[in-house]
């Protein structure tokens, strides 16, 4: 009897082990339905929006409702198990999951791939933009098949050609643009990045590869809505000299080996290419005598700027109808400009435009960029007169974790308590900012305090919330929308952060 029980137990064990192995193999070999995620950029005449893209079974898909919200207004939504009816303007759209057909009023259109539901979102293949969207909006759409961008309405994107010439001790890239561009250069992770201003660009080729000892490839990227060129050098220790010419329509960038002098030339201050006068001649052969414009070195630290509200979330509203999201978007843009001018930081925006973003997505944006500082901007009712500024650090809901200076710091920190390990540095940052805000004439700066600001909770960096006021249905926003106030505030933020980075402002 005992031997029978033992034998049964042994069989069960073998069976369970086999099942577990089979399960593991099945999971490993199961074809991944969603292969990767990317972004799709919508260019409008006065704005641009970034929408997450999903690739499902080698077809690019976009979230239907998010796209419709970008181009117009939804009138109604009726969702059943496998069907969706959407009222959009005066049109009625009907679609069914796993079916490529889509009905707009009485007209049926067949898309290139079936409609999917992914993570609860209705996803349509990208050819929806060319086959259905024009029927709905009546606007023209310029879309190059295979690309992750579309130009809607009266948007005329520029383009460029590229020529590469080998030089004696380097290589020269000549970009010829169809429209004038402005160029700002930065070095990121050993690559040179040239931001091309605000004008939309549709490149003829997405990337260019070279068999060259100095330049490996040049890639165009606008995944975050900002058109830019990314140049990858073939080797380290090279110098990069970008110069704009012909009124901003030609960009010449030389990648040169440093001169074989025993003395390394002291790196000059970073000079953005925009500093070159329009129409300035291209650098002659004597260009190597000048200091390198942007030597590739360790990347600059990152400041994450968070507009407290955006997309559908408009935040507070003032008596004269200004929304908090518009006000903080202005402020973030000004602070970004001021910080970039210090040339001591790179900037990460937690919202790429006027879009919805969850608290977690915004924290992830800052944490993935390994932000050195995080600032979130708000406007609210602070009582008293206007303009007024308050700076907040995070207040944990309960007992906080020990700060880094404490005796016991946990190895693993729960996601919702990450900010608690930076509280001391955050307080110092808040203190410094408040002291400087108080110097601005006519502005009341309250003493920094702690508050349970949700945005700060999972940020893995010294982080503060800056709230300007008083912004409420009882007050006009005039003093807060005043450019002079915003410029002063931005300048103070930039000065404080530049001083923290070393060397003072």
């Amino acid at each position, binding site marked *: 009897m005992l031997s029978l029980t033992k034998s049964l137990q042994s069989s069960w064990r073998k069976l369970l082990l086999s099942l577990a192995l089979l399960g593991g193999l099945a999971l490993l070999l199961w074809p991944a339905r969603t292969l990767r995620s990317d972004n799709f950029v919508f260019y409008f005449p006065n704005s641009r929006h970034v929408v997450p893209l999903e690739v499902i079974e080698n077809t690019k898909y976009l979230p239907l409702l998010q796209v419709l919200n970008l181009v117009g207004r939804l009138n109604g939504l009726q969702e059943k198990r496998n069907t969706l009816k959407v009222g959009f303007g005066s049109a009625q759209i009907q679609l069914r999951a796993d079916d490529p057909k889509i009905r707009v009023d009485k007209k049926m259109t067949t898309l290139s791939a079936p409609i999917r539901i992914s993570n609860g979102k209705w996803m349509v293949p990208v050819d929806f933009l060319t086959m259905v969207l024009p029927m709905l909006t009546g606007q023209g759409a310029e879309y190059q098949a295979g690309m992750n961008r579309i130009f809607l309405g009266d948007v005329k994107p520029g383009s460029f050609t590229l020529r590469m010439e080998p030089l004696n001790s380097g290589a020269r890239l000549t970009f010829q643009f169809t429209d004038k561009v402005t160029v700002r250069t930065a070095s990121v992770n050993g690559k040179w990045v040239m931001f091309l201003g605000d004008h939309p660009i549709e490149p003829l080729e997405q990337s260019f590869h070279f068999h060259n000892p100095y330049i490996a490839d040049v890639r165009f990227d606008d995944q975050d809505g900002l058109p830019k060129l990314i140049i990858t050098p073939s080797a380290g220790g090279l110098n990069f000299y970008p110069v704009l010419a012909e009124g901003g329509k030609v960009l010449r960038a030389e990648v040169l080996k440093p001169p074989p002098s025993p003395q390394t030339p002291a790196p000059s201050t970073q000079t953005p290419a925009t500093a070159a006068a329009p129409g300035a001649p291209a650098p002659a052969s004597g260009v190597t005598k000048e200091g390198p414009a942007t030597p590739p070195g360790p990347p600059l630290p990152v400041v994450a700027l968070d507009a407290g509200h955006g997309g559908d979330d408009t935040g507070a509203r003032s008596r004269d109808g200004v929304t908090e999201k518009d006000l903080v978007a202005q402020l973030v843009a000004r602070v970004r400009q001021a910080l970039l001018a210090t040339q001591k930081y790179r900037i990460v925006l937690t919202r790429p435009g006027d879009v919805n973003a969850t608290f977690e997505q915004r924290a992830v944006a800052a944490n993935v960029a390994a932000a050195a500082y995080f600032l979130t901007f708000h406007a609210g009712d602070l009582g*008293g007169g206007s303009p007024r500024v308050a700076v907040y650090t995070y207040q944990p809901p309960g007992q906080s974790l020990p700060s880094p200076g404490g005796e016991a710091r946990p190895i693993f920190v729960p996601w919702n308590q990450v900010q608690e390990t930076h509280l001391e540095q955050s307080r110092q940052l808040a203190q410094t900012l408040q002291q400087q805000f108080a110097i601005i004439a006519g502005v009341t700066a309250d003493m920094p305090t702690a508050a349970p600001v949700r945005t700060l909770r999972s940020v893995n960096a010294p982080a503060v919330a800056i709230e300007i006021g008083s912004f409420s249905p009882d007050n006009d926003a005039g003093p807060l929308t005043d450019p002079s106030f915003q410029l002063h505030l931005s300048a103070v933020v930039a000065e404080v952060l530049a001083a923290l980075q070393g060397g003072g402002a």
Partner: protein
Amino acid sequence: MSLRAKLLWIALLVVFAGGLFYLRSLGRRIFFEPPLHSDESAKARLSAAVLQPGAGPNETAVLFFPALGARKLVAESRPVKWAPGAADRVRQVLLALAEGPHQHLGHPLAASTDVRAVFLTLEGTAYVDLSGDLLSGISPGIETESLAVYSIVNSITTNIPSVKRVKILIQGQEVDTLEGHADLTDSIVPDPTLIQSGP
């Protein structure tokens, strides 16, 4: 038929008859008789009982209201006749906060706010479920929302010492924030530093 078989048959018949009677009464209760007390009426009776005088000894409730310009909570006293249960006392505090301050201070709860439910755990957490009307009284902002939250938390924990922390639900749901700023994802401990000392 043996005596033993007869007894078995009788026992089976009794059980069968008892089962039929139980099913009949169950059916009547389910299909014909109206429920004795609906949730709504129970809640209304509870609110009424809580607000009625004479439920307990005369005492004073301390309520904290936001003073926006000063970024503090200002205490106001109210004579109150406490209900016997802690959950009912939490409800009393919330209803008194919804009534508003006597001085020129902020309103942490809109007057129309309904206290949908209050639950207390053995660990001292009070779950307070407030109606969505709460939001109509609060202007969105870090300061306004923070002070409103701590006005609720400090008032409850001061008056009901068995409550150590408060978890705020809105319309029966857990929410991320009050109006986009103040974190409501966890239960919150009181912050005595916000209380304005002196006149």
